[in-house]
């Protein structure tokens, strides 16, 4: 799940300065589970913001609506009805939710009410920990199901480094050294030989280094016309015939770039 936490009140007051009527939009999925942006938290924050404004001698009306999934356009569609009555939207969704709103309602300023933190899991009541950075090139096969990219501050592929002390990480002594744990369980999983192999450099092109990632997971469900209004002819899928090499490509090939 996606884990987030509310921004500080002074920060939110600064963002909303001068606004009279704001729509706070909560989300009923991940951020509801981590008690950051569900119905209860959104209502609480709305009241807090209005009160804070009154204390400052200002007037701020914050109304609350919570949608089930702020990251999916269909779920935020009902908001369109009376949006013109508001000066701004305060989203209590994750960063995806904020952007879904901003994209759907380009004429309304959308402010983030949360700091989106990571993909993680609850490890004890009130505590969530990161488990996946979404690198697009999963290595859990080689590490006994523990992710070193997420859990090692140096993202080592062939750890541990010398900063492991009593099984904990020197960067934060309350944090277990993931490579200590990986090696600690290696015998159980018959993983020692795998760990003795040198993991080659990671291909980061599937990570954020490659820019905006866009994956069609299910070709059978993909309907280009539903996503884009362009290329409607032939369903947007035009079979390309191989083109002859352009003079530019020939030049690039000559100097060894392609």
């Amino acid at each position: 799940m996606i884990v987030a936490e509310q921004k500080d009140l002074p920060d939110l007051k600064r963002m909303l300065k001068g606004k009279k009527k704001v729509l706070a939009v909560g989300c009923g999925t991940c951020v509801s589970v981590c008690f950051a942006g569900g119905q209860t938290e959104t209502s609480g924050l709305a009241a807090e913001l209005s009160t804070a404004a009154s204390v400052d001698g200002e007037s701020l009306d914050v109304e609350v609506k919570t949608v089930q999934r702020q990251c999916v356009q269909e779920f935020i569609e009902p908001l369109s009805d009376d949006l013109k009555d508001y000066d701004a939207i305060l989203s209590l969704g994750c960063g995806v939710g904020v952007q879904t709103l901003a994209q759907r309602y380009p004429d309304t300023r959308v402010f983030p009410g949360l700091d989106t933190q990571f993909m993680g899991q609850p490890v004890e009541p009130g505590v969530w920990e990161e488990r996946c950075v979404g690198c697009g090139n999963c290595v859990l096969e080689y590490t006994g199901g523990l992710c070193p990219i997420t859990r090692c501050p140096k993202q080592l592929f062939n750890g541990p480094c010398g900063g492991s002390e009593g099984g904990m990480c020197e960067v934060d002594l309350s944090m277990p050294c993931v490579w200590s744990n990986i090696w600690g369980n290696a015998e159980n999983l018959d993983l020692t030989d795998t760990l003795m192999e040198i993991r080659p450099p990671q291909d980061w092109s599937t990570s954020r280094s490659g820019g905006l990632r866009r994956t069609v997971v299910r070709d059978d469900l993909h309907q280009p016309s539903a996503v884009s209004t362009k290329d409607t002819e032939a369903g947007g899928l035009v079979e390309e015939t191989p083109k002859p090499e352009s003079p530019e490509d020939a030049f690039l090939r000559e100097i060894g770039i392609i």
Partner: protein
Amino acid sequence: MGQALEKPCVEELKSGSNLERVLASGQFAVTGELGPPRSMNLELINRKIGYLKGFVDAANLTDNQTGIVRLSSIATSILCHQGGLEPVMQMTCRDRNRLAMQSDLLGANIHGVKNLLCLSGDHQSFGDHPGTKNVYDIDSMQLIRMVSEMRDKNQFQNGVEIKGGGPKMFIGAAASPFSSPVEMRPLRLAKKVLAGADFIQTQMIFDMEKFKIYMRRIVDMGLHEKVSVLAGVGPLKSAPMARFLHEKIPGIEVPSHLIERMENAVKDIDKEDKEARKTAGQAEGVKICIEQIQKAKEIEGVAGVHIMAIEWEAAIEGIVKGAGLLPRPVL
């Protein structure tokens, strides 16, 4: 040294560096550490070069150690080379991606830098720019492999040929024998050898008895025949420093009897006489360091020592001389 030396055949050398020659000749090697300043103080660098030149076979130039911005290890390595002190350029994976690393390796080698120590690097949270973004495109193991392939296969990390040949580096790696999990540390060293390490410099060792156990394992695995292990040592300055290293630095263990010796060295000196306490503490620290070197020399599989006199390069001469390791071989 006066004894007949067998000169290694140049053709068989991987880099031709002085450090490689000393180790190839079977002599006990001595390396030191030179910390580049947090400035462009050339006079200070030249002074530090003077402290080490002639007393070590090569000097490590640290790379923004502890995550603090300092004069570049590459630039300082080149200054050392020009000043007649052979550099071991340190390179961390924290600050550079594979493009920058390879480009810097070509650049350093063309300026005469022939030794490289490959490190993960101290985490930036310990340094003076804790909000920076670390790189870690590759890790130290992958760096060792990359440099060895640049040298031995003349190819970049992507497999493309380096026209005219790759940088000829003598490749070093670090080992921290007492960091956890202790039982896998020899395996980690084996992995670094597999990746292409030619020499190892260890974390600072104070407990030589415990280090013996580690080295026994290294010898049993036959690793000492494939890689030259230089035991890391360093002079203590005071009892508080000894306690700090013991308590705060992972992988450094200072036995209590050594901390006691550092305390006893100053116990009869007036607390107000700071200068006298400092001098007495440092003298005891140098004495202990010399004893450690002598012990390390007796341990099977130890090919040399790496002396880390942190911000105290002037201590190197006395330590090397006291340990009976002068003059250094000229090969």
